[in-house]
């Protein structure tokens, strides 16, 4: 199933990058006054454009500081663009009444389903894996249910706080990938080792995870994307290196985090006592009994599908490179 879901993921750039390119390529709206004369009366019709639209590029508006009402500037004095507004502005610009409602409904539906999924995951993981396992064991179901509900409230408050931090980024993708380089990249190394190397120990995995996250933080503190102010974009220790964009910084951060986690997890695992193999059956790939070969045809097997998707992804990357 995840393999089938990977197929629409390949056309994702057409959905997110193409509208953005179109939006930035369109003419920027300006305040214009057209003077016409009708029956001897001179009529000035002024088409007023808001400040954020005027200082933006194409249909992508500039980011306005909500406190001062002025456009936010980068380190070289150019206005920051609010790329998150590219798709909504394209909808408003091109959709007639009717399909415009459907477009806005689809946008809202995707926001809500993403939010709902993450909130549900947050309160479950907090209550089940943290609270029940480490903080308060053996309480009644009613107690855990109440904790889960309060975790939902806490999670929403936390996400509102995160939204204020995300205002400083000019698109949500940069924010997301920054968080992923802190959290997901080290976790990926831990999962890989845990699943495919039976010598991995709990201490090794934990030490690796902590080192990986700290490595991502240190990398973020030492580097800065070009034309960004030190602070939430990085460089809060000192600026050793400048990347051409936020995304380059995020990807290198993820590489550093993954490598640090991998090396430390392997080293610590080799120094600590391994778990007996009998306890690892079903957890590590080499010790898990293989499910019987499915009687499907070869083109229905997961391996064939995986290779086909990989080849398609490589072909698309070469074609659009």
């Amino acid at each position, binding site marked *: 199933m995840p393999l089938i879901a990977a197929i629409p993921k390949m056309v994702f750039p057409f959905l997110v990058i193409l509208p953005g390119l179109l939006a930035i390529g369109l003419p920027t709206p300006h305040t214009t006054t057209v003077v016409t004369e009708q029956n001897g009366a001179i009529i000035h019709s002024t088409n007023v454009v808001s400040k954020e639209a005027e200082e933006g590029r194409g249909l992508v508006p500039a980011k306005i500081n909500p406190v001062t009402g002025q456009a936010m500037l980068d380190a070289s004095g150019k206005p920051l663009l609010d790329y998150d507004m590219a798709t909504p502005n394209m909808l408003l610009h091109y959709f*007639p009444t*009717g399909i415009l409602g459907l477009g806005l409904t689809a946008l809202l539906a995707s926001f809500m389903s993403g939010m709902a999924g993450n909130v549900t995951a947050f309160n479950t993981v907090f209550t089940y894996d943290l609270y029940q396992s480490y903080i308060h064991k053996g309480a009644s179901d009613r107690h855990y249910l109440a904790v889960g509900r309060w975790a939902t409230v806490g999670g929403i408050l936390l996400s509102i706080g995160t939204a204020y931090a995300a205002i400083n980024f000019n698109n949500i993708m940069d924010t997301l990938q920054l968080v992923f380089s802190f959290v997901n990249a080290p976790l990926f190394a831990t999962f890989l080792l845990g699943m495919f190397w039976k010598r991995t120990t709990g201490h090794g995995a934990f030490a690796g995870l902590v080192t990986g996250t700290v490595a991502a933080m240190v990398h973020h503190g030492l580097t800065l994307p070009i034309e960004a102010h030190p602070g939430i974009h990085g460089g809060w220790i000192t600026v050793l290196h400048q990347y051409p964009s936020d995304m380059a910084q995020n990807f290198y951060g993820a590489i550093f985090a993954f490598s640090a986690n991998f090396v430390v997890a392997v080293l610590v695992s080799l120094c600590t006592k391994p778990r007996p193999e009998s306890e690892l059956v079903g957890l590590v790939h080499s010790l898990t009994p293989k499910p019987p070969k499915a009687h499907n045809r070869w083109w229905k097997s997961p391996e064939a599908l995986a290779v086909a998707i990989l080849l398609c992804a490589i072909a698309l990357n070469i074609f659009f490179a």
Partner: protein
Amino acid sequence: MSLDLRIPMGLMFTLTGLILTVFGFVTNSDAALYAKSLGINANLWWGMVLLAFGLTMYLMGRSSQKRLEKEPPPPVEEGEVRRGH
């Protein structure tokens, strides 16, 4: 009871497509409304796309539901370990 997901999903797309198609058909002569979308009747076209997609999903779902109801359920072997989700 196992409901094929394509039936409710197909019905929802069909209903949305129907609304858009009818609205697009009625407002087809309204040039001012479609000046925004460069003269293309986006409501009519996208409504028809949704209608076709919804009906295909609904019909596929209904035929597989009928086929499954005719077949007896596959026997579950005793003592077999269930894997995956």
